[in-house]
């Protein structure tokens, strides 16, 4: 019987070996990306140097959606095949996704200030990312709202799937809402024309962030498995003392 559940130990060993393979390339790619982004790419003819914020803002936006998608998929796997590790992967990914979303919003606002003169713009994409941020917070809050972690992870898994179905609906509604209330003065953030020399840092940072996510996900999953083991052991000791 335990065989079927042996894989936490096996996965744990796998994670330990895989982590460096994610961490080092991530570090190298991000450092290289930073070099290209800051030193080796031309300023935008319109926006000047502020376009350099794009090299962190856009990859963060990609990651915000990518991590939420991975959470929805692993939640579905966890619920359908009742696989505890899938739930752990979603639980481990949530804070990372939330950080990427927060960074995306922050850099978006820092980019908006010099370009449009205000810290926050109710632009369709920024607003959708803001709502995505609430979906992340909702997931994490629900996850921790139960005494039994098993209950928490399953409720949060259902929420992740519902949230994932709603992301396109919210995006559509916000886009539509934004065009309806389009204040004439704000230039629609269509994004600068991507010059090839700008693509390199953008790509590097994107892949670097993804590998960073991979490494951190494995690390956080190992921590969660240890925490579950600690909980199991303390419950077992409790039971043994009760039995004696």
């Amino acid at each position, binding site marked *: 019987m335990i065989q079927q559940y042996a894989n936490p130990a096996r996965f744990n060993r796998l994670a330990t070996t895989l982590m460096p393979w994610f961490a080092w390339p991530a570090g190298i790619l991000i450092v290289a990306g930073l070099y290209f982004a800051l030193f080796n790419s031309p300023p935008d003819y319109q926006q000047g140097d502020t376009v350099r914020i794009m090299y962190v803002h856009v990859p963060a936006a990609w990651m915000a959606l990518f991590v939420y998608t991975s959470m929805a998929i692993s939640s579905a796997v966890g619920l359908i095949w009742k696989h505890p590790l899938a739930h752990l992967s979603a639980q481990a990914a949530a804070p990372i996704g939330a950080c990427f979303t927060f960074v995306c919003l922050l850099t978006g606002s820092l980019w908006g200030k010099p370009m449009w003169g205000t810290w926050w713009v109710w632009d369709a994409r920024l607003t959708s990312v803001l709502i995505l941020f609430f979906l992340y917070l*909702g997931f994490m809050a629900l996850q921790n709202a139960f005494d039994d972690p098993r209950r928490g992870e399953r409720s949060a898994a259902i929420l992740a799937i519902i*949230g994932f179905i*709603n992301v396109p609906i919210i995006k559509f509604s916000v886009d*539509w809402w934004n065009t309806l209330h389009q204040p004439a003065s704000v230039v629609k953030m269509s994004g600068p024309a991507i010059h090839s020399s700008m693509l390199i840092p953008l790509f590097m940072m994107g892949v670097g962030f993804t590998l960073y996510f991979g490494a951190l996900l494995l690390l956080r999953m190992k921590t969660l498995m240890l925490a579950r083991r600690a909980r199991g052991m303390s419950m077992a000791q409790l039971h043994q003392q009760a039995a004696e």
Partner: protein
Amino acid sequence: MSALTLILHREIRLALRQISDSAIIVLFFVLAAVLFPFGVGPEPNMLARMAPGVVWVTALLAAMLSFERLFTPDYEDGSLEQLALGPAPLEMVAIAKAAAHWLTTGLPLMIAAPLIAVLYRLPDAGYGALITTMALGTPTISLIGTVGAALTLGSRRGGVLLSLLVIPLIIPVLIFGTAAIDAAISGFAVGQHLMLMGGFLLGALVLTPLATAAALRQALE
């Protein structure tokens, strides 16, 4: 169908015995809506401009208050267990609960909304749209809120948590609800908004019972 009506009948009977619970929700809606003029000033055409948004947002927040009591009493006294083990599938129980919530909370809010709109001097053209959008929107809110109630069942601070989970999912309904009223006031076509809201309602009617049943099943595990 009889199981659905039986459960619905039970819910209505229970709600009528504690009618004050739904009355409080409507009172909160009225109070919250009345507060805005004190904040932004009584200037008529600004209030008229704000009316659709204020009525819809306060109705939405009032509905949030009532979801925590939807499953918790049954969960605590064991009725939910018996309902889950009854002949009717849990999806049926979910629909009955959402319908009961709409009848005891959604409907009263829908009736109170035009009265609040009068306080805000909403232009006459807006009333028809207000009632239609509430008629399409409040059931969707009830359905999505029932999922939230099932998800937060047995959790600490269920009520506040439920709002955090459910409100982002209801934003599309809010957007098109208020947009429909604004369009009606300025004489534009309202059809597309109402059709979209109808779409949300049908989507919710089909999908949310599945989610609620799944949430209840794992809550009872």
